């Protein structure tokens, strides 16, 4: 025989996180501080002059883009495991922020490259891989945009996010082999320890900015979802 006990209402019950403006303030101050410290404390690179200082933004941006992708991976896996909508929204937020950071990384890399190599683009291994990473992100976001049903969107994005994340190291490896098998790779010289410290500090503060941005985006996503649910319930005649 068949027993049924299905609850009513299919709305999202995601708790909306608090605004945390202080985090925004702190992280922006942090990044401003570390940037100023790094830029003023390191001497102009002997080959590339002050242009080298763009690395203080470019490298942390790349680093945090990776962290964002990692968050997408974990949140997607959590969603498929627990089926709680909040994980899907975290993954989507991280993907959006990650895409922006990846685009920033590419732009800065290209800007650095122009005076250095004479062109806006070389098929440098890291730059190329980052471009592919951006495209994987964009595919993820495009799929989300094309899918109207929330549950389906969450499930599909989770699967796509996980597969995309798995591919990231493979992409980087294969592109690097492609460029280095018969060529000597050119990379920016990293010599002074102040330079390395500067990079590390900025990576830390950039991570703080990342966390703040993802949380802010997540909050917006929760609000949006709550609004959607409210209108769904209104259409169905309210919860009985």
């Amino acid at each position, binding site marked *: 025989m*068949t*027993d049924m006990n*299905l609850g009513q209402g299919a709305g999202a019950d995601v708790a909306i996180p608090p605004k945390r403006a202080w985090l925004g303030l702190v992280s922006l101050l942090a990044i401003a501080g570390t940037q100023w410290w790094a830029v003023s404390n390191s001497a102009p690179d002997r080959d590339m002059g002050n242009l080298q200082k763009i690395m203080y933004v470019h490298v942390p941006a790349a680093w945090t883009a990776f962290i964002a992708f990692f968050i997408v991976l974990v949140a997607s896996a959590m969603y498929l495991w627990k089926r709680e909508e909040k994980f899907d929204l975290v993954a989507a937020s991280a993907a959006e922020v990650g895409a922006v950071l990846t685009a920033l990384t590419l732009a800065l890399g290209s800007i650095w490259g122009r005076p250095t190599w004479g062109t806006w683009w070389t098929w440098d291994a890291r730059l190329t891989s980052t471009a592919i990473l951006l495209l994987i992100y964009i595919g993820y976001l495009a799929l989300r945009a094309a899918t109207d049903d929330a549950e389906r969107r969450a499930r599909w994005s989770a699967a796509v996010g996980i597969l995309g994340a798995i591919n990231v190291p493979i992409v980087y490896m294969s592109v690097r082999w492609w460029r280095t098998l018969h060529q000597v790779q050119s990379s920016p010289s990293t010599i002074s320890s102040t330079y390395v410290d500067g990079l590390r500090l900025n990576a830390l503060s950039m991570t703080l900015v990342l966390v703040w941005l993802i949380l802010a985006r997540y909050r917006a996503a929760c609000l949006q979802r709550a609004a959607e649910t409210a209108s769904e319930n209104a259409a*169905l005649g309210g919860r009985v």
Partner: protein
Amino acid sequence: MRVEAGEVIALVGRNGSGKSTLMRAISTALRPTRGTATVYGNDIRTDPGGVRELTAMIGHATGVYEDLTVTENLHFACRMAGESTDPKRLLEALERVGLAHEANERGRNLSAGQQRRIALARVFLRPVRLLLLDEPYTSFDDEGVARVNEALADLRRRGGAGIVITHDFERVRTAVDRTVRIDNGVLIDAHAGPPMKQDFPKKVGHG
């Protein structure tokens, strides 16, 4: 809500009341956000595969592959269901639904009613313990309706259970034992016997 082995119930309610959704949840096509259901002891959430072994559903879609012949469609269905694909069995099922002459016709050459009979033939080929029918009488003439009710009677006799969604209280009269009414996704009424006129809301603009 409970359905006992050997009984067939009618599920009624106005459009959008959640009947199809409920049925799709039971058939494991949809995951419920809250609550659960068990089919002969198999929970739809933890053991959907077990539920599917025992359950068949005929919904709005006929699922007929248009480029394959009728027989090939049934052959595929049997293979997928793990049933024997003995051509005699297939022909027998086709005869039961009155499609024996069309056995080698491509799906796309059939009318909507004929395609729905293929769906019914699938059910005859795969004896299940729970049968879910969503508006099974549409596109069927009297003969087709008789076949559907025959399948339901068969089911009862075998100790299976069935849930039928329909607006057609005339045609379903002999086929069901109990009626359940839902609205807005909530069960609001149940009574023994087939659905009566009162169970169906007045049409807008009439009387």
